[in-house]
């Protein structure tokens, strides 16, 4: 395991993060406490330090387990949690991005985690209503109070991240270090806006659902059903404080609909084929693909069993050849759409730079 700086900050994080939406069985498909502990230990033994949870994951159980697991060596771990999901149904101020929800959510997370500070706090998902200036300032206040050390934005449109980053910098407030988004071989649409935006601002990218809810392991190719698929769009914790069964069933169907397309099936098949050729698991291939894409990616491993997690950790020493990368790209490529197909192409660069673009050394 190697370590890297998180975005433009000084925080060192492991090159893989452990996702803990699976910690606890409150939502009907997670891991028991013992299995969660085994996964945590395996991740830590492999050198992993970056632990990602959220206020609402498994109704707070995930945070409680994480707090307990890191307690004996708290300072070694980078504990990240999130705010935004409502924790009291029917109370609109118990969720969202506003200062009121933020403060009580962080207090509750600190209590469940049994710690006096959160290393990295994520705004879990953009609520579409709260002014960005309020969010930026309120987050900074928590940092000044010592309750939070670093900041990130999860599931937020590129233009909103751009606004938040610019405001924080202009006002001398705590800068943002990273974004967290869904990104995998099947869901490559972040290549349009989110990834170029992150690169331009020097942000790290935490990739959730790197295996496309398991579709990239090839499991749907085998049994032809979504099986025990779990919610993927968006990450269930962003919206479900109570995790009702009906909601999860609906999500399972959505996951199945998304990954049962011809395109998704072709991508899963190619991933399985490449894996067979190099003697690795499809999951390892899918993770390696993300890590070899442009940008500062940290995939989030979300497993329900020690066996799966151990397999995923095996991705650390997988490096795909140019030929394999090319094949995976060919099967999963998508139209970028405006303005990226319009302004990113070679003709346009010639048009703007008068034939001198390729003679120009550019900052890396």
């Amino acid at each position, binding site marked *: 395991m190697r370590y890297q700086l998180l975005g433009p900050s000084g925080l060192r994080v492991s090159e893989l993060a452990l996702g803990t939406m699976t910690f606890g069985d409150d939502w009907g498909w997670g891991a028991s406490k013992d299995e969660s502990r085994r996964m945590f230990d395996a991740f830590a033994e492999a050198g992993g330090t970056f632990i990602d949870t959220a206020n609402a994951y498994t109704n707070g159980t995930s945070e409680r387990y994480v707090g307990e697991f890191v307690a004996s060596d708290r300072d070694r771990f980078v504990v990240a949690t999130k705010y935004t999901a409502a924790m009291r149904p029917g109370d609109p101020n118990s969720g969202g991005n506003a200062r009121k929800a933020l403060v009580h959510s962080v207090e509750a997370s600190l209590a469940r985690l049994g710690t006096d500070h959160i290393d990295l706090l994520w705004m879990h998902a953009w609520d579409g209503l709260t002014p960005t200036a309020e969010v930026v300032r309120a987050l900074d206040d928590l940092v000044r109070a010592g309750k939070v050390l670093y900041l990130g934005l999860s599931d*937020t449109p590129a233009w909103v991240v751009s606004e938040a980053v610019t405001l924080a910098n202009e006002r001398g407030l705590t800068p943002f270090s990273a974004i967290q988004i869904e990104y995998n071989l099947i869901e490559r649409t972040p290549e349009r806006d989110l990834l*170029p935006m992150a690169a331009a601002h020097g942000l790290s990218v935490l990739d959730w659902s790197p295996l496309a809810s398991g579709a990239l392991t090839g499991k749907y190719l085998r049994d032809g059903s979504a099986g025990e698929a779990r919610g993927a769009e968006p990450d269930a914790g962003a919206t479900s404080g109570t995790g009702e069964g009906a909601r999860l069933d609906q999500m399972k169907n959505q996951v199945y609909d998304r990954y049962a397309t011809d395109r998704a099936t072709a991508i899963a098949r190619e991933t399985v084929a490449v894996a067979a050729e190099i003697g690795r698991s499809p999951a390892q291939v899918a993770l390696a693909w993300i890590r070899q894409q442009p940008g500062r990616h940290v995939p989030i491993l979300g497993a329900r069993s020690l066996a799966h997690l151990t397999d995923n950790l095996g991705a650390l020493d997988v490096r795909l050849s140019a030929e394999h990368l090319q094949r995976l790209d060919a099967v999963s490529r998508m139209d970028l759409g405006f303005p990226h197909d319009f302004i990113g192409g070679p003709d346009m660069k010639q048009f703007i730079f008068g034939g001198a673009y390729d003679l120009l050394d550019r900052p890396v």
Partner: protein
Amino acid sequence: MDLTSFRTLGRSGLVVSPLTLGTMTFGTARWGSDGDASAAVFDAYVEAGGNAVDTADVYAGGRSEEIVGRLVADRGLRDRLVLATKYTFNAEPGNPNAGGNGRKNLHRAIEGSLRRLKTDYVDLFWLHAYDTLTPAEEVVESLAGLVRSGKARYVGLSDVPAWYATRVATLAQAQGVPGPIALQVPYSLVERSVEREHVPAAHVLGLGITPWSPLAAGFLTGKYERGDVGARGGGRLSGPNPFGDSLFTDRNWAILDALRAVAAEAGRPLAQVALAWASARPGVTSVIVGARTTEQLAGHQASLEIQLDPEHARALNAASALEPAFTGHFPPEVVRGIFGGTSVRGWP
């Protein structure tokens, strides 16, 4: 509505017509118009009350600006018109500083534009396209400098990623200098990508949207048919063009079918319905229309009379809906979940 149904462009005091006259066709040999035809279109637009004219230094190699400049000067219309031009494209092969969005090219470009336009100021100066390199800080500072120097009254951003527009607008706001008031992007029934990021960003940032190519280079007039890709039709898409054959897709033919059906029921030409659709989209301030003839222009104007039947709007929206994508914009039911299952009305 007609051309005098004026509105402010974005969060600014600049007042424009609901249709802007685009002049990319002025002085363009193969598919555009010569000086006389351009003058006829220009006069018809102005006589009908239109006040917004859009050109660029790169159109017809500067010829468009020259034609517009002469027309405006001859008719003594300078102060009545909202005159817009653009910079970014290269004017001197091999010289990277004669193109792009850096300050050196900006000053070179606007001096040339003012000379060709025979004026000492433009009302709206557009950054024409994202050049991928120039820092947003430099763009903000140099565009604001133009406003302070009096060479431009307002500035706008064309063909940039939404996050870059947001960065520019937010920097200007934070620094208390004049920032962009408008966003010019392709927007039509077959090109709705801007709804993912640009439209919501423009709303929050106070940018008026001025769609270009609202008829998709003529595709939405119905003059192209499935199967006659290439030779027939005599339009821009029949020869070398920036769209290649990229408009002739199954998806776009299906959108055209839906448009045909709605147009037939409404008893209007396809182009008018397509323009009415674009004009009615949330965030759109002024649709940029080009015309080679006064008849075409009259058709565009007539689109302003159309109020799309909700049923027709639904049919067009359904046929042209965007593919799902991960953007971080969640659907209303997800946002409801964030607020504990309640419904919350936002500040407009």
